[in-house]
């Protein structure tokens, strides 16, 4: 209680000392804002959260400090439950990823779904590339798909679980072409790459930045990019559509949500805050360095996106053979 009081006083002091950042009316956070992430330090969501807080501090966009809170466990379900418990708390926000949308579909244990939380903004779309080993006989995605049609079930792809994007892309391509190849799950990204470089599998879906290093070392080749348009880092590699496979692009998505029942004023405040963040030069540099795409979307649009994404994923997951519980 005492620390709360002190932090509240500090917050008031900060607001008083920093009048330029405070708009005349509407909601203002009264104490440091907590950003909940579902990964430990160094994980994808955590890195994004720390990048965001650094930018917000540097550009003095918030009257109060923002602090990252790691609530790991249950593939994001622990963090979601934590956010749901903060009902009505206008000083808590959270970073969501695609997991937050798909996991509740698969888990009978989930007590909270993304629909229970308040959408704020969508921020990033993370594209991916399809890679083979440098000495692979498959020069194009077509080569690979034709080969897998000739030998159904012989070619192999390494990836995460069957609900991961890696497999979703495979399902969509197989459905579109009638080809058939095997998907082998490995728990860590390192093992997936080791399986490809060791020649034990033929194909993998990998982050553009990570693939870049292996291409530079001459170990890997990229056949296609899972993106709507060509990434700056891969100007000569066709997108899936350009390669002749017009399948829906399922992006890895990241953005901001808030506890249930957040006040309208607070939603507008955070929406405005992140709208200003994505305008900054440091945000643009961050996207470029990581080869991410700007996926900015406001609250009402994001709510619609959640519905569409959930429906698409439900169908894809069912096709993939996962047990969908809701």
């Amino acid at each position: 209680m005492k620390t709360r009081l002190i932090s509240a006083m500090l917050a008031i002091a900060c607001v008083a000392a920093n009048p330029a950042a405070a708009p005349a009316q509407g909601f203002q956070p009264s104490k440091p804002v907590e950003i909940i992430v579902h990964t430990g330090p160094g994980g994808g969501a955590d890195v994004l959260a720390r990048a965001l807080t650094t930018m917000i501090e540097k550009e003095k966009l918030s009257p109060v400090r923002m602090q990252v809170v790691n609530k790991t466990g249950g593939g994001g379900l622990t963090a979601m439950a934590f956010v749901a418990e903060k009902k009505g708390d206008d000083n808590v926000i959270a970073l969501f990823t695609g997991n937050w949308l798909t996991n509740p579909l698969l888990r009978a244990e989930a007590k909270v779904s993304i629909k229970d939380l308040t959408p704020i903004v969508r921020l990033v779309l993370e594209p991916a590339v399809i890679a083979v080993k440098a000495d692979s006989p498959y020069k194009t995605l077509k080569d690979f798909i034709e080969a897998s049609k000739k030998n159904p079930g012989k070619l192999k792809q390494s990836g995460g679980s069957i609900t991961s994007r890696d497999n979703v892309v495979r399902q969509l391509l197989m459905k579109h072409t009638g080809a058939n190849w095997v998907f082998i799950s490995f728990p860590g990204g390192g093992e997936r790459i080791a399986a490809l470089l060791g020649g034990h599998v033929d194909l993998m879906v990998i982050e553009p930045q990570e693939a870049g290093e292996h291409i530079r070392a001459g170990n890997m080749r990229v056949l296609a990019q899972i993106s709507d348009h060509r990434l700056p880092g891969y100007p000569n590699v066709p997108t899936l559509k350009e390669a002749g496979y017009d399948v829906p692009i399922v992006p890895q998505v990241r953005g901001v949500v808030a506890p249930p029942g957040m006040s309208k004023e607070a939603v507008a405040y955070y929406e405005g805050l992140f709208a200003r963040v994505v305008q900054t030069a440091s945000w643009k540099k961050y996207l470029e360095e990581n080869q991410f795409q700007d996926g900015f979307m406001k609250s009402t649009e994001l709510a619609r996106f959640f519905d569409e994404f959930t429906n698409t994923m439900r169908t894809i997951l069912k096709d993939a053979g996962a047990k969908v519980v809701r």
Partner: protein
Amino acid sequence: MEVINGMLHGFAVALTPVNLWWCFVGVFLGTVVGILPGLGPPATIAMLLPLTFQMNPTSAVIMLAGIYYGAKYGGSTTSILLNVPGESASIVTCLDGYQMAKRGRAGAALGIAAIASFIAGTFGVIALMLVAPPLARFALSFSSPEYFALMCLGLAMVVLLAGESLVKALLAMLVGLWIAGIGTDLFSDASRFTFGMTELLDGVDFVIVAIGVFALGEVLGNMETREETQMLPVPKGLRNLLPTKQELKDCRFAFLNGSVIGFLIGVLPGAGSTIASFISYGIEKAVSKHPEKFGTGVPEGVAAPEGANNSETGGALVPLLTLGIPGSGTTAILLAAFILWGLRPGPLLIQDNPELFWGLVASMYIGNVMLLVLNLPLIPLFAQILKLPVYMLYPVIFGISIVGVYAVSGSLFDTWMLAAFGLLGYAMRKLDYPSAPLILGLVLGDNMERALRQSLMMSQGDPAILVSRPISAAMLFLAAAVLIVPLFRKANAWRIKAIEEQL
């Protein structure tokens, strides 16, 4: 030549006052983290990561690596003194280390652990420096069938860990394998044995099980005897606190065994230090002249696993630095750290940043010396804890265990699980079930199941893939031999007994 130039360059980097300081900070923190049960190097490195953003990447990696291998030194302390494994790789050290302490050789056990750690740690660095690139390529030829065979070999060690009854050991192992199955299935993302609890979705952390079964089980069992005045003997004088010449001589092979096995298993992405320590302990017992004494406090039983878990550190850095592939939880976090520092981790890391690689290697030589100097004088101090009367010592063990488990996750659920596994450990002691096979099953179960399923997916369901590949076939053969040979010996003993009775 290249290596010598590299090393000279590396020492020039590592011996700057700033880097010496960060190396010391790293190994010191590592020792502390190793001593505290529960809190392991991955969690510590993850927590400290945000603080390193402002640092020079070379200094930062020197410090974080110091935590990584430093923890392996400290991990043995509570294993030996209190039967509380300080971290997952020190679970095996409990088996003989705690027994040595019970016989009044706590200081000797700690000394041997430190010396084994030093020898194997240095061996790991030398190997990292000399054979990293070719070995990394060799490691890539390991795939799921080979991992499955390796896990089978590990599981075969159960015969060596069994006490009186092999049946009881096998039962305990099966329970361990079952616990390993709790959580989320990697392949289908389906939940298994979670009973609707989100807390179980990530599975059961084997450090919790090990602390519960070993430490709390031991304390509960001892409390029952109500011998209030029974204290563990602590010999007086520094000389008696250090290992004798004979004890060191007994460990000669164990130092080598631990160094080599630890490094080789470390290089494989997808094995790990806990598996390395189990396997080197098993090999040590298998080649020993007096295998029956293992588990009663033999110095080799401490030297082999402690060596293996230190040498593993050098091995685990091989795929990370040469291929950009993290092989364990800790190296995965180091990989994330490289990205945050603006480096490009990948196959070209060494080529792009030679000062980082050679600086790190040189700092690891220095760090290992620092750790030996830091740890040896602490031994008499730590051994004093055993002078506490049991009515103080037992609550201390309870406290350390509970705080250790809670500190990692901050979850009360884990603390309840600790209590449950403490009761399980107590029941197992009462019914004379060995606890090491349970931990063995738990450590290997997940990896083994995964490797088997991956292999069968690769071969479209044909189990021949497991025996048609030479490395995998050889390891499976070895595993079968480990299982069958003692049975022959036993059968022979029965036959002789039967013949004698007839006469």
